Structures are given as structure tokens and as C-alpha cells.
């Protein structure tokens, strides 16, 4: 399909918004995630469900990505918006979309680093104004300069990638045989292991890991839906927590 500049600009705009304060900090947990990014991109390009499906796939790779202490290991939002856009425009399937989203999300990290560095200057500016007694400058300095900067380093790259990217992608695709697309599929099937593993590092331990295997069995062998698996998980979690609690209060009572 053909993308208009307006569509590319809208996608770039939402990418900017996903890192901005305007939808509140809850935006970091929603619009910044590939699932929603894909959905929004899909709406802009006229294919909401397809966009959401691609975004969902990309999101699994980035499931365990945690932003902590100012560090950022890749930009899931850029992968979501730009990756989904390129996939929808160039008619790529979900797995191929997942494969190309990875380099997109990785390169976009430089945008984060640039912003985090330049914003430090605004802090000094705020210091000076407050020292002069001008505390009303603080809200302005906390918001306007950093957001103008963020807009420049977010909107422009994203819009350009979405608008001009498909030409590069279609050029590549013309050279590619079905075999190459199969390879992309395999890559797309392996990458989610990263997102899942990163999350497991945080919540996996000798107690919870057996349930990881159980989850695999439920999904592969019994072909259970994730929602059903979650319900089963809640039941098990509540039961196990109850058992643990009553046994510990039991021992302390008898002691």
C-alpha cells in the first residue's frame, strides 16, 4: 500500500506522544508498548486489527525490557510504531515484522541517549532561575524545552523512517526468495525467547520455574488460550499463597 505523508506524520506524532508527558505517565505503560503502538499505527493506516496483531508479535520480544535508573536497552516504542508501519505498508507477515523491528528498536536507543544528555542542561538553567527567586520558571523549564527537544528527536526520525522506509524494504524484498522469507520466519520465532527470558530473570526462581514448564505444556499440548492459562494461574497463586501462609502461621502458633 502507499503511505501518505500525513499518515507518516501521524505515526511519528504518536511515537513522540508515547515518550511525552501528555497522556500522563500511564502512557509509558500503554502507548509506549508495541501492542498499542501497532494498534494505533494500524488505525492510522486503515488496518487496525492487522496492526494490533503485528504489534502483539513485536511486543513479545520486548516483554521483559525494563527501563530502570535512566538506562534503556532498546526502544520498544520505535520498534512498535515504525516496525508495524513498515510491515503494514510493505505487506510483511507478523514474523518478518518482528525480525525487522529489532534493528529499528536498537538503533532508536541513540535518540534516548541524546535526550537524556541534553536535558541535563535544562536542570542547570532551572537552578539559575530558582536562585534568582524566579520559581515560576521551573514548570516552564521542566516541560517546554525538554519536550521541544523530544519532539525533534522523536517525530522527525519516526516520520522519515515510516515515509521513506518502505522503499528500502521493497527494494530488499524484490531480491528475496521464499527461502529468505522462511529464514525471517524462523528468526521471528526465536526472538520472543529474549523478551520472555528477560522477564523470567526477574520473576523466575526455584519456586516459580516449574510453573513456567507447566505453562508451556498447557499452551502447546492442551492448546489452552492465554486468558484461560491466566485464570488457572490466579487460582494456583491464591491457593499456594494460602497454603504457605497457613503452614507458617501453623508452625508459629504451635511454637
Amino acid at each position, binding site marked *: 500500500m502507499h503511505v501518505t505523508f500525513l499518515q507518516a506524520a501521524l505515526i511519528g506524532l504518536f511515537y513522540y506522544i508515547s515518550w511525552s508527558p501528555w497522556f500522563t*505517565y*500511564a502512557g*509509558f505503560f*500503554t502507548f509506549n508498548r508495541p*501492542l498499542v503502538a*501497532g494498534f494505533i499505527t494500524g488505525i492510522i493506516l486503515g488496518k*487496525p486489527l492487522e496492526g*494490533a*496483531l503485528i504489534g502483539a508479535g513485536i511486543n*513479545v520480544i520486548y516483554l*521483559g525490557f*525494563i*527501563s530502570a*535508573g535512566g538506562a534503556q536497552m532498546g526502544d520498544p516504542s520505535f520498534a512498535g510504531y515504525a516496525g508495524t508501519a513498515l510491515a503494514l505498508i510493505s505487506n510483511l507477515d507478523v514474523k518478518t515484522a518482528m525480525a525487522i523491528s*529489532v534493528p529499528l528498536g*536498537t538503533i532508536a536507543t541513540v535518540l534516548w541517549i541524546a*535526550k*537524556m544528555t541534553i536535558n541535563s542542561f535544562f*536542570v542547570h538553567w*532551572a537552578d539559575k532561575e*530558582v*536562585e534568582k527567586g524566579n*520559581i515560576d520558571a*521551573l*514548570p516552564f523549564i*521542566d516541560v517546554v524545552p525538554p*519536550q521541544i527537544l523530544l519532539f525533534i528527536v522523536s517525530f522527525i526520525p519516526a516520520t522519515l523512517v515510516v515515509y521513506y522506509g518502505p522503499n528500502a524494504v521493497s527494494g530488499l524484498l524484490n531480491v528475496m526468495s521464499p527461502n529468505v522469507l*522462511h*529464514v525471517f*520466519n*524462523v*528468526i521471528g*520465532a*526465536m526472538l520472543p*525467547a*529474549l523478551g*520472555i*527470558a528477560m522477564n*523470567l*530473570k526477574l*520473576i*523466575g526462581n526455584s*519456586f*516459580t520455574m516449574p*510453573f513456567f*514448564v507447566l*505453562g508451556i*505444556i*498447557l*499452551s*502447546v499440548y492442551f492448546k*489452552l488460550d*492465554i*486468558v484461560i*492459562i491466566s485464570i488457572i494461574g*490466579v487460582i*494456583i497463586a491464591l491457593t*499456594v499463597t494460602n497454603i*504457605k*501462609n497457613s503452614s507458617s502461621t501453623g508452625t508459629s502458633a504451635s511454637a
Partner: protein
Amino acid sequence: MGEVKTSINKSKVVNNEAKRVLTKRDIFNSWIRWFMFAQSNYNYERLQATAFAHSMLPAIKKLYPDKDDRKAAVQRHLAFFNTEPVCGSVIHGITIAMEEEKANGKPIADESFNAIKTGLMGPLAGIGDTLTQGIITPIMLAICIGITNNKNIAGPIIFLIAQYSIMIGISFSMWTNGYKLGKKAVEQILQGGKINKVIEGASLLGTLVMGGLVGRFIPLQMAVNLNIGQVKFNLQTDLLDKLMPGLIPLLLTLFVLKMVKKGVSPIKLMGILIAAGTITGILGIF
């Protein structure tokens, strides 16, 4: 403006009687500034400092009519600050309560404010990141990704509504509870075992759901066919599936987990997986 004038008159007329009190409106105004601009000016040097000071402004303006007091208050809150913004909101609540006490005559030094903030911001970052980024968001994502994959557009919509409700709910209640209960109560809760129990139970749920995702998103099937004499033997269906369903995806994830625990960077791991996918894809293994 009218309110400020009245309290100045009150304090001039009646010495110790005038109490500077923050209304629910003030608390809310402070909270919304944090909940919007917490990472607006996120920077390497002082991280969330300007946002913290910015969010304190409505309270500071209400509590300190004197320009120099206001300046001093803002300056003590421009110090380095970083925590998980949703759960860390409790720190701001406590700080506002302390500023209220100070404005009403209790002598609290600048160092005390920053001691509390510094002492709490670390643990709350740990708990907060684990809870919001490690447990709540991945589980919500897994469920809504599951819904989306059933070709149901409700997936991302439910995700949006649920996440907004959860994050706003947690942040605002942490903020107001920090203000009401104060530092003592918060330290008690942090030390008590309740939070750990919740994290434990939620981790169980999360790990189970992660397994569910493996099944759906890592559908690696070995495409290796062996010819042993007269017998055609497919490695996947005739051997692996009979051993354990999802064995290859399980092993792959465990391998990546081991690498992650060893400290291999995610970017490097992405490269490794892409290389592995390329090689096995070309060789026809998968």
C-alpha cells in the same frame, strides 16, 4: 490569593494559632503534576529532580507565603531524585506532609527531607519496577496479546483501559497514603512481609503466563527428516513431541535465560538469536 492573605492576617493577629493546611485540591494538583511530568525532563545528571520540585510547587505555594521560604523549599527539592514513578508516589506524599509540618513551625532541616527521599527512593524503585514493569505490565500484556491473537480488536483496548486504571489507582493511592500515614507507617509496611507475599504470588502467575506465551510465540518445529533404512523418521513428530511438548522452545528460552543471567547484553542476544535463526533457517533445521 485570597486564601494566602487571610492566613497572613491570621498569623499576624494570632501567633501560633494559624495553621497552614493543604486541601485535597492541593494534594491532587501536586500529584497530577508528578503523574504527568515525572520524566518530562529525565536526564543523566539529576534524573527526576526537576519533576520532583515541579510537583511540589502547588504545596509550596500554599504553605509558604514568603518568597525566600518558597525559594528555599524549591531548592531543597531540586536535589538528585530517581524512583519508580507510580509506586514511588508515596515519597512525595510523605514529603508534602513534612513540608506541611515545617510550614507550621516544626523545625525540619533540609538534610532530613533528602534523607527520607534518598532512603526510600531506592527500595521503592526496586519494588516499583518489579511490580509495574516486571509483573503487572507483562501479565496484562500477555493476556491482551492473547486476546488480540484471537483476532479480537478488544485486546489493545482492554489493555489501555486496564493499565490506565491500575497505574492511576496505584499512584494516587500511594501519594495520598504517604501524605496521611507519614514516614513511620510506610517504613513499617516496607519492612513487613505483605509486599513480598504479593510479589511471590504474582510471580507465580507471571511465570505460568510466560510459559503460555512460549507456546504461542515460539512455534519452532524441527524440519529434520531422517531416513533410516526403509523407515522415514521425522525428528519433531516422532521423537520430540513424544518426549515433551514444546521441548525446543523450552530449551531455547532456558538457554537465553542463562545468558541473560550471566550478564550478556540484550542487544548482543538479539544478534545471537538472529544469527541462530538465519543459520538454522538456511540449513533447513527449522
